Every structure is written in structure tokens, then in C-alpha cells.
């Protein structure tokens, strides 16, 4: 029986069901509706009319509280432009303006079609019909009034702002948050990226004075200069672009669209090309520096992060943040991408076994090797202690000329070096400095000693021992230096006498004298002098000293407030059981309950006593600390979705939306409510605020009753054993319905991260159609559905 079901599930893509009619209707606007439906009591008139609040709902988005509410929803656009806000405050947000007829005005708030769906077909039929003929009624979209709850559900963001009068502090909008920096070839100017100020700050190195502050795109991340210093390039994560600035006049030259979520960038030695990693789409954009257009896009590892030129200038290497797709519960494996300059093609993809979070990278002058930061997680081992590198270890990778990769830890047995953000190498190649964002610390590495440690070890030691050894850092780490809050980007002065450190949450640049490795100055960037509650929360989020042995910070698993792509085994729910996929923190405040089990009704609870007992193992947060942390978590931004065009859904996405909202199967049978996507994912966030059993209970969700199952063998138990738990053991579990906003950015999927792509949710893991009635979908319909989901 199970084999039959599995066969059915795997074959449904070619099932010959009647295709859902394409429903590409558009929105007409209430005025058109009112041509016929003029008054209550007349046939087909809305029984709820008039509803002034519906009509006024768009205008509410222009009022002052809306901006504060938007901050608590992770929205980066103005509320009147946010698809999330407009989803409940107007009728046409989800479709977008390309689906609005000229008679439709979004500013009229929630109109007839907000509840009844786009009416163009209805109107067309009415107008084409013979007098007296009544077009089919549209009805309420979901056929019942629970549809209203999708918007009329209490939302913490609205409650906090409207009921408790919470507001962003003025200073919250004034922090600079320096994250990366570059120095001019003559060493006189320092260019600092202000992530929160959306600006590039130009400092005079000698005096420390702020020379200029240049507006750039949204959430800039990295900066690079052309070899002659005539051009300055800044990547803008949320604008999906690179801003180009004249290096002499500091005037903006242009802005080049690139891929999703660009982070690191580097300029080729000739200055002809600018390479920028598109972290959100696993790519590297090549920008022609003369035409300022993207000339090529190359495939990179998962979530590429930064770039560095090899010392010989013939190639460059990109790091990547997240691991490649891997079989369930196996060690993560990440990838570097080496690009041959000139040809601008990928020439090698060295694997980095057991490592993730490869971030900063730098070449060693005089040696054809590159150093890059990395994290070696222990996500397959239960989190039962925070000692001896039991949960996370942190270190450096070495990429040799022949593509060989070595790994060494910067930790010590009793004290981790958490969240290594960046590495810089002195111009003479003697020293490397690594920043620990979690410990507010720098490590000074003797490069020759580090390389000697590797070269003097056997292959076996290099493969198995050194990557896990907590004591060997003493051989090559010369000193450790405490700096201001959350050091990230590093750059040496051209003469090597100074090192500049971007102290992100200190709003300053620290100046370290070399080779003394002492702090000599701090360059103030002009941000607020006060530390707001939000800022304090951000510091706590990045602070690994809240955990025993500095083993991890919140940021360790949630870089950029997002995910590390791993599933961890947490002690509280049983050793070896219930591995839980790491979930994004972007825009989550309004989506309680939290945890996959849905047991935490608030973020305060999520980060409360149990978090201390099972994660940090030190003192729980004080009430003030907890409030600050939750406030920061509540405001982590959700990046603009690159899969969604400015004018709304594409035709394919529209078709996918129709599949998502369908109430009937391809054969015309009505779908039970519990089998429809919108039943659980119908709200503005596309979540339900409740736990559901959708037939996804798998291996490790309960203690094994089967000896040594082959997890990749689906023939007996279904994928990951879901047939076993559905049919035999009756141990099906319920999980929180995740929000689907920006779901494209959060693989792997489901509660345990066993599902690598959105498609797999239905092609492999919906054996019993518990996760929606989907076996009748054609391949095209499924592709449409996925296209729509990615646009959310």
C-alpha cells in the first residue's frame, strides 16, 4: 500500500487532470461595482456596506503610527508601498499595479474586490450579456467569513503602537552602523559604509574628521575602490544595486542594478570589471566599469558573501555563507568559487568540508594563498553543553594555490572566538587580523606560523585533527585585543602601519597601530551619543558573552537576522530527536506563536528562561535586556523581494496565485477547506498563527522504532519515514504554520530542514496530501505555484 502511494505521489506531475482555467482577471474598482450594486437591499449588494473603515484603510497608512508599525513588521518600504501593509489596507496589493484597470484606485482602500476578488471577468460578462442576464456571483473569496480574519486578526505590531504608544526613538534612525571600509591608495581617505544611514562616510585619516557623507542605496554593505582610486563602488543590499561614486569629487556617478542582496565586491586589477556577490541568489555579478552595466552573472556557492583577489591578480575567490544542499543529517559542506579574471568564468569550486559561514577573505601578499573566516558548526550533536566547542567552533580557512583547503580554529579550549566577520592581511604579508563580532575582539595571527602549523602536519592531522583542535591557535595567534562593540570590516593602511576596524555597534572606526597591535584612536562617525533600547537589543543580539564560553551569539545562527541553513538538535526535546530547522527572524514579530512546536506565544517567552537554560547556560536576560532584545528582534528587516516586480505579479505568478487560492481541484470537485493553501496560509503574512499536522512527521520526530533505517531509501517507509509515522505509528506531530513572506530565501524547508526546495515539499513530501490537495496539479501548475510563493 505504501509503495502504491509513493508511486502515485511521484507520478502526479504527469497526471492528466483538467488544467485549472487561467484566471488572469484584473481589478476594476468599487466605482464600477457600484454601477450595478448601488444600494443595500438590491440584489447582490454587499450586506456589510457601507464600511467606512475599509474605505479609509489606505489613508491610515499615511499617518504617523504607520511608520512605527511598519518597523515592527520588518518592512523596509514606506507603508503605502509595502505589499505587506497594502495587503490588508487595500484591495490590489498582492496583484500589483499591472493588474489594475484605470478605474481602480488603490487609495480607495479595501474595496469590493478586496473580499470578492478581481471583477474584470464579472464586469465584462455583465456588460456583454443580454439585458437581464445575471453574471455568476463572485461571492466571498474563500466562501466563508473566516476570510475576514486574515486581516482582522490582532497583530502585536498594531497593538504595541496603537494601544501602548510605542514609537521608534529618533536616534534609532540616526545610527550609522559601519560594517565595511576601504582606504584610498594614498592612504589619506577612509571610506566607511554606514549600513543604517544608507550612506558612505568619507573620513580624513590624519585628522579623523568626517569629510563627506554620501547617500547611497538601501542597506549598503561593502565598498571597493578602483586601483587608481578614481572610482568608489558600494553594494546596496536592499536596492539590489551598486552605487558608483567619483573618488575625487565624491559625487555619485551612477547606480548599477545587480542581483539579489549584493554583499561583497572587488574591482579587477585593471579596473575594468567590478565583481559583486549576489548573496540572495547564489551568484556573482560582473559589472563593466566603463558602461556601468552588468555584463555577466556567474553561479557561486550558497549565499556568497565576500571576494578577494589572489595575490597574482589572475583570479578572485568568493566565500559563501551557507552550506550546499546535503542529505538529511549529514555534515554541512560549503564551497568557495574561484573566478578566472579576463575570461570571467568560474575555474574552480573548492569544497570546504564541515564549514559554513565563510565570510571575510584576504590574500597573503608574497604567498599565493588566501585566508578566509569560517564557522564549523556541530549541529548534528545535541546541544547539551557549552564547552569544548560542543556547539560551534570558529576559525580560518586556507586556500592554497592548488585548490587545497585547510582549516584551523581560532578558539581556545575554554573560550571561543565567536562570529569571525572579516580578515585582513598586512601589506608585507606577515600578519593577519581577524575580527570577532561576538566577542568584540581582534586576533593577531602570525601568517608564517599558521602556514607552518599546516605544512608541518600530516595529511591525516590536517584533515581530521587541526580543523577540530582548540589548542593549536596558540601556535599562531600572537595576541588578542578587545575593541568596541561588534567589530566587522577590517582594512590595513597602504603602508601597513595602521589597521582600521569598523565597530558596527559602536558607530566608530577603531585605529590599531601595527605591529604593536594597540588601539591608538577611535574615529567618531557622528552617530547618536545615546544607546537606545533598540540599539542595546542589537548589541545583545550580536554578543556572544551572553553564553557560556562565548560559544555563540544570536547572530551566530542568524547572520543578517536570517538563517545559517542548518537544523540543530536541541536538548529540551530529547537527544537525537526533533532536529529543528533554523528559521529566519526577518519580520517575525507579528507571527506568533514561535518555535516549530508553536509553544511560545511571544518573543519574550522565546528568549526567556528556557533560552537561558538550554542555550546560553548563563544568567537569563534581565527584564530590561529581554525587552531590548525583543525590540530589536521585532524590527529585523525583511529585504525587498527580487522575485516580485515593481508592478506586481507576472502572469505566471498570477496563475500560481490562482492555484494557491483554488477551491476546486482540476476535476472540478470542491476541495475540503483543510486541503486548501489559503486555509493555513491565507493571511497577509501567509501564516495561520496555529499548529497543524500536514503529514510531515519524519525520522527523528519520534524515537526510532526501526533498526538502522536507510534514510535515503523511500521504498519501505516513504521519504524520511513519513509513511511510517502516518500509517503505522500514529505519531503524527503538529507544527507551527510558517509565514511565507520571503519564503524563497529560506531553504531548506519544513520543521526539520529535510526538504531542500519548495518544489520538493509537494513532489516528495506530500504523500498523503496532508499538505494541500496537490496530486492533481500539472507540472506547469506546480511551477506556477512555486513562482507565486517566491513572489510573496
Amino acid at each position, binding site marked *: 500500500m505504501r509503495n502504491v502511494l509513493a508511486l502515485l505521489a511521484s507520478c502526479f506531475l504527469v497526471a492528466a487532470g483538467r488544467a485549472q482555467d487561467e484566471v488572469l482577471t484584473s481589478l476594476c474598482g468599487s466605482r464600477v461595482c457600484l454601477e450595478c450594486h448601488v444600494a443595500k437591499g438590491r440584489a447582490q449588494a454587499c450586506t456589510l456596506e457601507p464600511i467606512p473603515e475599509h474605505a479609509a484603510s489606505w489613508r491610515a497608512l499615511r499617518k504617523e503610527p504607520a511608520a512605527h508599525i511598519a518597523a515592527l513588521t520588518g518592512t523596509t518600504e514606506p507603508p503605502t508601498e509595502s505589499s505587506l501593509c497594502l495587503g490588508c489596507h487595500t484591495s490590489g496589493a498582492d496583484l500589483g499595479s499591472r493588474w489594475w484597470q484605470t478605474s481602480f484606485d488603490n487609495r480607495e482602500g479595501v474595496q469590493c474586490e478586496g473580499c470578492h476578488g478581481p471583477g474584470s471577468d464579472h464586469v465584462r460578462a455583465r456588460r456583454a450579456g443580454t439585458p437581464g442576464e445575471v453574471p455568476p456571483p463572485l461571492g466571498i473569496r474563500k466562501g466563508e467569513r473566516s476570510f475576514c480574519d486574515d486581516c482582522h486578526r490582532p497583530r502585536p505590531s498594531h497593538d504595541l503602537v496603537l494601544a501602548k504608544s510605542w514609537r521608534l526613538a529618533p536616534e534609532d534612525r540616526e545610527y550609522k552602523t559601519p560594517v565595511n571600509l576601504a582606504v584610498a591608495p594614498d592612504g589619506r581617505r577612509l571610506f566607511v559604509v554606514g549600513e543604517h544611514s544608507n550612506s558612505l562616510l568619507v573620513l580624513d585619516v590624519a585628522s579623523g574628521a568626517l569629510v563627506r557623507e554620501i547617500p547611497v542605496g538601501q542597506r549598503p554593505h561593502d565598498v571597493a575602490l578602483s586601483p587608481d582610486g578614481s572610482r568608489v563602488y558600494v553594494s546596496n543590499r536592499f536596492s539590489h544595486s551598486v552605487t558608483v561614486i567619483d573618488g575625487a569629487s565624491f559625487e555619485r556617478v551612477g547606480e548599477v542594478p545587480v542581483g539579489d542582496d549584493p554583499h561583497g565586491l572587488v574591482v579587477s586589477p585593471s579596473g575594468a570589471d567590478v565583481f559583486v556577490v549576489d548573496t540572495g541568489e547564489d551568484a556573482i555579478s560582473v559589472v563593466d566599469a566603463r558602461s556601468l552595466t552588468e555584463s555577466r552573472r556567474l553561479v557561486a556557492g550558497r549565499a556568497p558573501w565576500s571576494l578577494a583577489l589572489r595575490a597574482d591578480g589572475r583570479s578572485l575567490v568568493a566565500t559563501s555563507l551557507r552550506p550546499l544542499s546535503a542529505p538529511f543529517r549529514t555534515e554541512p559542506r560549503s564551497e568557495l568559487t574561484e573566478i578566472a579574471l579576463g575570461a570571467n568564468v568560474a575555474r574552480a569550486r573548492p569544497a570546504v568540508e564541515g564549514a559554513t559561514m565563510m565570510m571575510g577573505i584576504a590574500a597573503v601578499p608574497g604567498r599565493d594563498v588566501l585566508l578566509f573566516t569560517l564557522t564549523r558548526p556541530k549541529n548534528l550533536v*545535541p546541544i547539551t553543553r557549552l564547552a569544548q566547542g560542543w556547539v560551534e567552533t570558529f576559525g580560518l580557512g586556507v586556500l592554497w594555490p592548488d585548490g587545497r583547503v585547510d582549516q584551523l580554529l581560532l*578558539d581556545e579550549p575554554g573560550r571561543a572566538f565567536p562570529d569571525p566577520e572579516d580578515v585582513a592581511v598586512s601589506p608585507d604579508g606577515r600578519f593577519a587580523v581577524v575580527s570577532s563580532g561576538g566577542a568584540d575582539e581582534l586576533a593577531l595571527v602570525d601568517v608564517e606560523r599558521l602556514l607552518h602549523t599546516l605544512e608541518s602536519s600530516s595529511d591525516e592531522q590536517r584533515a581530521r585533527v587541526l580543523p577540530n583542535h582548540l589548542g593549536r591557535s596558540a601556535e599562531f595567534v600572537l595576541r588578542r585585543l*578587545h575593541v568596541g562593540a561588534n567589530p566587522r570590516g577590517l582594512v590595513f593602511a597602504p603602508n601597513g602601519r595602521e589597521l582600521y576596524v569598523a565597530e558596527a555597534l559602536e558607530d566608530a572606526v577603531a585605529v590599531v597601530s601595527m605591529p604593536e597591535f594597540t588601539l591608538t584612536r577611535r574615529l567618531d562617525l557622528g552617530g547618536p551619543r545615546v544607546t537606545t533600547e533598540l540599539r542595546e537589543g542589537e548589541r545583545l543580539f550580536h554578543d556572544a558573552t551572553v553564553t557560556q564560553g*562565548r560559544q555563540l551569539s544570536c547572530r551566530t545562527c542568524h547572520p543578517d537576522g536570517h538563517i545559517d541553513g542548518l537544523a540543530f538538535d536541541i536538548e529540551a526535546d530529547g537527544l537525537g530527536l526533533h532536529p529543528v530547522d533554523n528559521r529566519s527572524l526577518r519580520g517575525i514579530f507579528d507571527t506568533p506563536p514561535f518555535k516549530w512546536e508553536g509553544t511560545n506565544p511571544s518573543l519574550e517567552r522565546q528568549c526567556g528562561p528556557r533560552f537561558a*537554560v538550554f542555550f546560553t547556560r548563563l544568567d537569563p536576560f534581565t527584564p530590561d535586556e529581554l525587552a531590548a532584545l525583543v525590540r530589536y528582534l521585532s524590527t529585523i528587516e525583511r529585504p525587498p523581494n527580487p522575485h516580485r516586480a515593481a508592478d506586481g505579479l507576472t502572469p505566471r505568478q498570477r496563475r500560481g496565485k490562482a492555484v494557491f487560492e483554488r477551491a476546486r481541484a482540476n476535476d472540478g470537485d470542491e476541495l475540503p477547506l483543510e486541503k486548501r493553501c489559503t486555509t493555513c496560509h491565507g493571511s497577509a503574512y501567509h501564516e495561520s498563527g496555529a499548529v497543524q499536522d500536514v503529514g510531515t512527521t519524519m525520522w527523528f520526530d519520534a524515537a526510532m522504532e526501526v533498526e538502522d533505517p536507510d534514510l535515503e531509501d523511500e521504498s519501505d517507509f516513504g521519504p524520511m519515514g513519513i509513511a511510517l509515522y502516518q500509517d503505522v505509528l500514529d505519531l503524527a506531530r503538529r507544527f507551527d504554520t510558517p509565514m511565507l513572506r520571503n519564503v524563497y530565501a529560506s531553504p531548506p524547508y519544513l520543521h526539520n530542514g529535510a526538504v531542500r526546495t519548495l518544489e520538493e515539499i509537494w513532489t516528495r513530501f506530500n504523500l498523503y496530501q496532508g499538505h494541500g490537495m496537490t496530486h492533481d496539479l500539472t507540472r506547469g501548475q506546480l511551477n506556477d505555484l512555486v513562482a507565486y510563493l517566491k513572489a510573496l
Partner: protein
Amino acid sequence: MTTLRLLSSLLGLCGLCASWPEEAPVAVEPTTALLVTQIPHDVRGALPGLGRERARTPPPGARIVRLDLARPTEEPKVYVAGFRSAAWPDVSADGRRFLFVGQRSEGDAFQVWEARVDGGAPRQVTQGTSDCLEALYLSTLFTLDAQAPRERLGFCRRSAAGETALFTCAPDGSDEQRITYHPGGGGGPLLLEDGRLLFRVDQVPGAAPRPTPLAELLLVNVDGTDVQAFTAPAPEGVQRSRPCATPDGRVLWLEQRADADDPRLVGVARVRAFGPRSELAVHAAGELHALIVLADGSLVVARRPTDAPAAACELWRLDAASGNFTARLCATSDWDVLDATPLGPRPARPGRSSVVDETRKSGFLYCIDSRIGRDGDTLRSAASLELLAWSASGEHVLGRAPVEHDGSFYLEVPVRTPLRVRALDTEGHALEEMQSWIWVMPREARGCIGCHEDPELAPPNRQPRALRKRPFSMMEPTK
């Protein structure tokens, strides 16, 4: 979080941060005052000798006085009165109170007492008929059944049979909990910067040839969990003083070999105690009884010089660079110095949030790969294991359990019981066995990397096969 930031700063090599006033690592004003335990000079044989500083109860007449090193001629101020014997003060983090152990009258048990530095009658903390020794302030403890972290005190309790173990209690003496269960006892507690307790165990009385912990230093959380070796055991025949922690993150002690004249000052990094250790010969030492680290990091030793065997044991400054005694710090001709501790505030240590659940009867012990040996070496594969337990009657086998093909095992084990593991081959012959004892607390899930794991090696990142199943129960003895 200020406390944690201070700690972080302290860990971050404080000397390097001097130019950053807002990041000053330790906001503590060093003082020159000490609380000193003195005993009458005419009490012969009362001084314990190196390595036995607190193994015996203080002699009658022991008293606690305040000495100011900046005013060496000033008469010591006696701090507690009305005790037949009072000793071993430990000053609270805020510098306002101190704990000590005291005996009111002959025949009374030694109890833990607390007094204010600025005077007033001391209050009794502990009760009972057995002696409480070596009291100290701990970090806070938080559990899920509590509303907030609770302050805890620690002390060593010695039974009538002479067995010692570490206990904790609330500041009022209630909620007494035993936290160590090593057959070799437990004493000499020292609270480290990371909030964990360093303590010493001795040779297991009447134990089999193995294991043989000799003056072993162990680490344990203040809830009794995650006990582990701090550093390598002292070689046979070597006496170690009670360790001290320095502000720059080192742990120091004195070692005396039976075949050597000069003792040695030994130091290890707290965060890497199995790493290289520094050794310095202490010249013309004489009779040493206690090593004390002052707030500024300088060293003081309670010493009776070799050339004056009848003189009082006094405080001497020890130069940590040369190993020479550079100054006698105060004259106490009628009194021997038994011990001393700096008086004044110190950085608070981070608290502990604990999984320990007293309602549970069992804990868990799992091993990722029993084949992993020191420095990553691969040991022979075990087919099964024997779990050995220690009780008053000695060592006995608690049971046998399977070992998975990947070398992992997962056991449900009795709590608060000294345990160790012996790996067996397919024929039941012993392959390897643990050289030290561990225990688990109620609900604790204790993980090990391997049977002879390298303490400087992080675990491999793989899911132990044993964890795919329910734990093998060791709760019932093997029949």
C-alpha cells in the same frame, strides 16, 4: 549585561585596553588590605604544609584579622570574636561581606558564617553536625522553577567518616545541595572567572589500581553538571598547593617534589589548562603554606624561611618573574599566617542557568565515538561497555550496554553516582577504560566525545547512531 561585559573585557586581555576608558576591563579598585587567618605561633603542628592547606579543621585559637600591606606597622584588627576557631574568609563580589568557617565551642561542628566587613555580629549560615569548611561565594543559579537567579554559597562538608564533598546553599543556609560525588572527595574550591568551580580530589581511598587520581583538579558547574578534568593530574609524589586565579586569566599553584629542595611556581592559562604550563623555581623557599594572588595580580606567600625554623610563618611577596622573595610584608611574631584573601570588591562571575531537575531520578550519558582517543587517534572498536559505579562498598559493575558500529552509546544512568566506563571487545575483554570518575545530575545529559578524548579537541560533527534510539537503561543493576 554590564557584568558580562566586564567579564568579557577581563577575558579580553585587560592590559591591552588601557586606552579605552569606556571599555575598561575591570572596574575594581585594588586595595592593599587583606583578611588573614592567623593561628597562635605556639600551636605546634597546626600548619598544614603545601597541598594540605585546608584539609584539616583550623586549630583552636585561629582568628581572622585585617592587615593593610600599605601600613605594615599597624596593629592587625581582629574581625570576628567569640569563636574558638575562625578561619578562611572569602569576600563577596561587592566587597562588603565575607564568609568564614567558625567553631563557637569545643565539640561544636565548624559551620559557615557570614559577617559584614564594616562590623556587626556574624550570622550562622549552615547547620548540622558535620564540619563545613572552605566557604565561598558562588555565582547565581537559575532554574526553570525559579522566578529569578538566586545567589548561592559554596562550601566543603566533611562527614564523620572523613569523606568530603562540595555543597551549595542559599545565603540563609537553606536548600543545601551536594554538587560533587567524586570518590576522592572534593575540596579547595575556587570560583573561576567563567563562573565554574575548580576543585581538588585526592586518591580514591582503597581504590583498585585504576583509576588513580592524584591531587587531580576538576572543573564543575555550580549546579554539579559537566564535571571534567581541569588539567593533567600531578605526578606521583608531587604536592600541589591550593590554586589561585590571577586577573590576567592564569591559574597558579606551587608544586613541591619530594626529591627537590625548591618548590616551583606553576601556571596555566585558565582557558587552556591542558596547554603549556609555566614553571618557575622558587628560591630559598623554606616552609610554604599558602599562595595568595592580590587584586593587582602580584603574589604573596605564607612562608616560614628555611633559615628561621622557629620564626612565625609570615606573608612574603613573591616575584613571579624571578622566583625570589622580595619583601616580608608584615610582622606577626606571635602568630602564624595560615591563609589570606584580598579585601575589596572583585568582578562578579557569570551565573548559571541549569537544566537540573530534582524531580528526575535519572540522567543521561552519551558518547559520540568511543574510538576517539587523544589527539584524534583511533582506538579499537568496542562491541559493548561496562558501566562501573562507586559506592561506599567500593567499585562495582552497574551493567553492560551495547556500543553502536560508529562507536556511540547512549545510556540512562542513575544520578549523583560516581561512574566510569570500560570498553569491551566482542569477547568481553577490556579494551580501554576511563581513568577518572564522572557523575550526572538529575536530567543532565552528559556528552563525551570518546573514552580517551583529547580535552582540546572539539567533537566531530556527526549524529551518533545511538541517539537514533531510546537510551539503554542502566537504572537497574545487572543480575
